[in-house]
């Protein structure tokens, strides 16, 4: 039996690698998508930070008189100041208007007696900060105390905060679930009710269990190779951060791939539709799963986790994504193990459901 196992294993492996479409969707497509994500998102983290804001101040009589404003904005525009907020130009009102129209500055400040007036073109965070800081200076001037003391604030947030990582985790989840295409395809080859090849195999003197197991294993190997390539690419080229537990990352990828194959198995064995429709169903399920896990908008996962937690508890894409996220963001591993075990249960249930059909040897019709 062991000879037969490897004979079948060898050839299924070969056919899987030779099938261009299978390899494109499971190997190449995630890498292409990952590259696109990288190109599109690589700058977001920088964009999230507050930039130095370009402003102008109308340098007139009023301003020259107001020592508070003069000092404060000088301090806030000082290149040596670590907490620098502004790049300030001191000009007359005509020039300020011109600068604003040309988009050189986001707004300008003019002191009108007691109240400062800010002219801006539209709304945004920069404008808000400008207004806010101006008010703060104004209020300080009311107290008459110029000396500002620092206050004690201690930041205790977790370190890894780059939320674009979620995109890459959902990408891994997508690749893992796309692996289901392999098991759909393989089942189509070896099940007698699905193809003539399957009939041919069924009438040979090999135990069905041997064939199913060795074919499933072959597709798992191909799937793992695909995942390894994707990981190598995301780590070496895209520089995705998976946290510090590399062994646990491998385990999660392996379990996630198993979940993908199980979905493919269940679809392949239980659904009585054409192979193309089966692939379509798998891709549909995967994309919906990835959408809920945050692929098309990172906050979606949090919204679902909060609003309808059960949905992402049965969504394998979310389990995989959440597993990577917890490795990256949390220092404890409770959540990671919960995800891994969920994925195992998920795969187990699907394999069990498919089992009756996998074992069947005689059919009502073929």
């Amino acid at each position, binding site marked *: 039996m062991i000879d037969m196992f490897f004979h079948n294993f060898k050839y299924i492996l070969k056919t899987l690698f030779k099938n261009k*479409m299978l390899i494109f969707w499971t190997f190449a497509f995630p890498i292409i998508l990952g590259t696109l994500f990288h190109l*599109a998102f690589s700058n977001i983290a920088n*964009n999230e930070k507050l930039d130095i804001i370009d402003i102008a101040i109308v340098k007139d009589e009023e301003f020259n008189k107001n020592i508070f404003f003069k000092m404060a904005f000088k301090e806030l525009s000082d290149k040596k100041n670590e907490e620098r907020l502004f790049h300030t130009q001191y000009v007359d009102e005509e020039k300020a208007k011109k600068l604003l129209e040309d988009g050189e500055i986001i707004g300008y400040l003019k002191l009108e007696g007691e*109240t400062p007036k800010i002219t801006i073109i539209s709304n945004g*965070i920069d404008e808000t900060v400008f207004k806010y800081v101006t*008010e703060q200076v104004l209020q300080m001037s009311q107290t008459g105390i110029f000396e500002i003391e620092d206050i004690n604030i201690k930041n205790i947030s977790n370190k890894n905060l780059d939320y674009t990582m979620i995109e890459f985790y959902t990408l891994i989840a997508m690749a893992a679930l796309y692996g289901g295409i392999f098991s759909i395809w393989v089942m189509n080859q070896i099940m007698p009710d699905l193809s003539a090849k399957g009939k041919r195999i069924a009438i040979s003197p090999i135990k069905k269990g041997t064939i199913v197991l060795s074919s499933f294993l072959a597709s798992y190997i191909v799937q793992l190779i695909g995942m390894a390539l994707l990981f190598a690419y995301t780590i070496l080229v895209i520089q995705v951060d998976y946290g510090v537990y590399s062994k646990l990352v491998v385990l999660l990828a392996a379990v996630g791939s198993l979940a993908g194959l199980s979905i493919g198995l269940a679809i392949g064995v239980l659904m009585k539709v054409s192979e193309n429709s089966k692939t379509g169903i798998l891709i549909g399920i995967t994309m919906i799963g990835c959408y809920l896990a945050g692929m098309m908008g990172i906050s979606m996962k949090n919204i679902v986790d909060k609003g309808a937690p059960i949905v992402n508890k049965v969504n394998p894409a979310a389990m995989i994504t959440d597993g990577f996220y917890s490795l990256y963001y949390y220092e404890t591993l409770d959540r990671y193990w919960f995800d891994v075990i969920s994925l195992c249960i998920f795969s187990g249930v699907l394999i069990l459901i498919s089992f009756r059909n996998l074992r069947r040897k005689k059919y009502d019709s073929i």
Partner: protein
Amino acid sequence: MTVFKTFWKILNKNKLTVIIYTVILLVFGISNMKTSEKSMNFQAEKPDIAIVNYDEETELVKGFVQYLNKNCNVKEIENNEETLNDAIFYRDLNYVIYIPENYTEEFMTGKKPELEVKSTGDYQASYAKMIVTRYIQMANIYQKKISDESELVAQVNEVLKNEAKIEMTSKLDSNAMQKVTLYYNFASYSLIACLVFMIGLILNSFNQEKIKKRIIISSENCKRHNRALLLSNCCYSLIMWALYVIVSLILLKDIMLTTRGLIYIANSLVFTLCITTLSFLIGNLVNNKEALSGISNVVSLGSSFLCGAFVPVRWLPDFVIKIAHVLPTYYYINSNETLGTMEKITKETMQPIITNTIIMIAFSIIFIILSNIVVKTKRKIG
């Protein structure tokens, strides 16, 4: 006429693809309507924060919380470390403030007790930090003068009432324009995906060996046949385009009927025709349905990511934007962005949009020439 008939038959068989991409666009459009509602106006730039208070409900704490409520969106979130951590990571909160035990007591005795915070580190968080700092600093100043807690809070509140005057010069409803821009930018994805795949499929079935032979020897001459094919493809493209314009009319309503809205629509028409010619080229190059679905996915996703249909252009790295210049989608989206922020529609301000249009037309001509070359070389070999 047979060309047209066959055309619609194939289309009908593959209508699911069209439906899927249209639904994606709809889902995006609707969810976009909802989320962008708040983040676009002045007030909503308030950061989202949570307060965890371990101190008593003292006057100082009450005053502080009241102040934060006024200046930030204080969210009621379950005080559970994991929930708070998740919320920070997913930017559901920008800032979490922990007020430690005995904070008020220590503060009133002139010590400077420590506040613990969690922060996303983005600009919203920086803003939240400013807000917090201002209150505590102000209270610090008055603490030296006033020993009564209630009086101190009252004084701080009084001084914080001083505000600056704001004058906004722009009359443009940038919020609404933003939505139109986002919708039309995203529509480029659905359009490319639908057109490349479907037109490719249709050309394929016409180019199939047997049919090709039959057509070459048929009485209907070759040029007329090709023209009919191109015409029916354009017909299909225009229907898809009209469909997406109608969806935009339903979602965005009368804003689409202003001059500006109509320019958006015109821009998308030029783009549609450009993509039709691109699809024509791809369909002539690729002779395999499965490969076609791969290519249409890569082309549509690729151009959408690189040109800023999904992620706003201003967030893209410079080198990506440079690469994007070789794709027609870039010019389409550039026009949309220009329209979204343009103050007034004048001859001068329209100039960049006109340039973009000319570039898109140039792309179309190149695609047509290329596909003619492809068709000719193929016929010689076949």
